[in-house]
């Protein structure tokens, strides 16, 4: 036998093992322990561990789903929302990056331009229509990754559940803009100031030169 070889002894089954009786009694001990503990927790007035929290207490671990819910993790990808500018307009610039990145092809955008004379004309465009087919969406989050202006997010914590008909899964711009994040936030984190906005530095062709 080579040096350094670890020899593991084959476990020998004792008479107690082979007769089954002792081992079965031990096993029954384990299951009875759980049984009586569970029974005690389930009796009227019994105290169960709070399953809606992330804890590891022993006892009944069943979550009564629709009535009790575990909070979703911060990174949970829920139903989309369109973030807003400080003035309440949609932040989206209708660049179609999300629509391009979408592997399920569930995003449809109709871009539009600000009219001549509008302060944002040429600087930005906006989605005249922004439609997501949530039924087709696979919640991969690529649209959020692709967005260059933090206009679309999936931090609403809304779990997509069954609706009455397929049409109600098609969310339009108004509905998407009405969603709030888990923190109740609706604003974008990237409100790039444009010459039309109050936060803009003010250097323009006329003023700067």
């Amino acid at each position, binding site marked *: 036998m080579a040096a350094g070889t670890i020899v593991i002894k084959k476990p020998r089954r004792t008479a107690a093992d082979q007769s089954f*009786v002792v081992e*079965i009694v031990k*096993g*029954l001990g*384990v*299951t*009875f322990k*759980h*049984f009586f*503990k*569970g*029974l005690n927790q*389930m009796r009227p007035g019994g105290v169960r561990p709070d399953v809606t929290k992330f804890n590891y207490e*022993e*006892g*009944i*671990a*069943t979550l*009564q789903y629709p009535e009790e819910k575990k909070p979703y993790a911060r990174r949970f990808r829920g139903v989309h929302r369109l973030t807003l500018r400080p003035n309440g307009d949609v932040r989206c610039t209708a660049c179609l990056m999300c629509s391009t990145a979408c592997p399920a092809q569930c995003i449809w955008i109709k871009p539009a331009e600000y009219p001549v004379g509008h302060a944002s004309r040429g600087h930005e465009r906006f989605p005249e229509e922004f439609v997501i087919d949530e039924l087709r969406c696979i919640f991969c989050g690529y649209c959020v990754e692709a967005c260059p202006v933090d206009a679309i997010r999936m931090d609403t914590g809304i779990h997509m559940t069954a609706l009455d008909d397929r049409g109600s899964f098609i969310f339009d711009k108004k509905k998407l803009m009405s969603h709030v994040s888990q923190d109740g936030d609706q604003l974008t984190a990237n409100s790039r100031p444009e010459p039309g906005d109050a936060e803009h530095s003010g250097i323009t062709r006329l003023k700067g030169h």
Partner: protein
Amino acid sequence: MITGATFWIATAIKVFAIVFGLVNLGALLLWVERRQSAMIQDRMGPNRASIKLFGKEFRVAGLLHSAADGVKMLWKEDFVPPGADKLLYQLAPVISLVPPLTLFAVIPFGPSIYPDNLRRVFGSEGWNAAASYIPLHISMADSGILVVFAMASSGVLGAALAGSSSDNKFSLLGGLRAASQMVSYEVTMGLSLVGSFMVYQTVRLEQMIQWQVDHAWGIFVQPLAFLLFFTAAVAETKRVPFDAPEGESEIVAGYFTEYQPMKMGMFALGELVEVMTSSALITTIFLGGWQFPFLKLDGFHFELFGIAKPIYMSHLAVVIISAITFIVKVALLVLLQMQIRWTLPRFRYDQIMKLGWRILLPASLINIMLTGIVLLFVNAR
């Protein structure tokens, strides 16, 4: 013993009570099993089936799930596989449900009732020894426990027929496994009781109980036989850890793969009734049947440390206590069987066979031999 019309009325009542009670208790056991397994596994178990009465929702701790299952089973399509043997296919569930129900015919669930002497103390003055009595078991057959063996053996037929008539390979395999397993354990089941017969000197169950009332419970007299018989009885019910005939991981659902709701329900019900029957049998043979400890027919007789203080009770009280005792004993055994079912994993098929033929069978033979030797010495004294 009563005779004439009263006999028939009493018998009809007993048959109705047992059949109706067992079938309904089967549904209750379904609930017990679900909730018990849930507790063991730190779950709540099914509790959402509800019924709406007066605008309020009643869940009754999940009891309604059994009822909902029944309703669902009744409404599902009753489909017979085109290649199946129609007659045997339809017959199989009946055959597997009826024997365990029939078994109860010979099991006494209480001492004989003397309707005339209900308020008197047994054997005391005023006790009308000539009055007729009603035995609390249905069959008066002398064969006694042999009926049990006969009926239990015919239970094999149900599974075997179901397996062979379904026109499905999995069913056939399941049926084969069920047949061979049940036949194997039948042997142990019978031989393990031979020792008890030798001690009790009878095959009639009410006389066995009487012996235990007079002397000691069978479990103290025949401890090894109790273990052997209990194991064999569990194997007979085809439940975990002996559920190779319906091993889902290998053969889908075994012999009842092809059975649709209500017929499958009959198999399941038969299985649960069998659990109760086997528990009742074990209670009768090894746990003193309906006897409450220290309770004789005329009242309690504590005979500990030389102190003897009889507490006399009326006949009615004794009968009621005895019947309740019987039910409690059976219930505890049923719970134990359920607990075992949720504790152990399934045996492999070859392990089942090895256990039956190489361990249990020799052990039961040894038990007979030892019993014989001991009896020889005891009787010689």
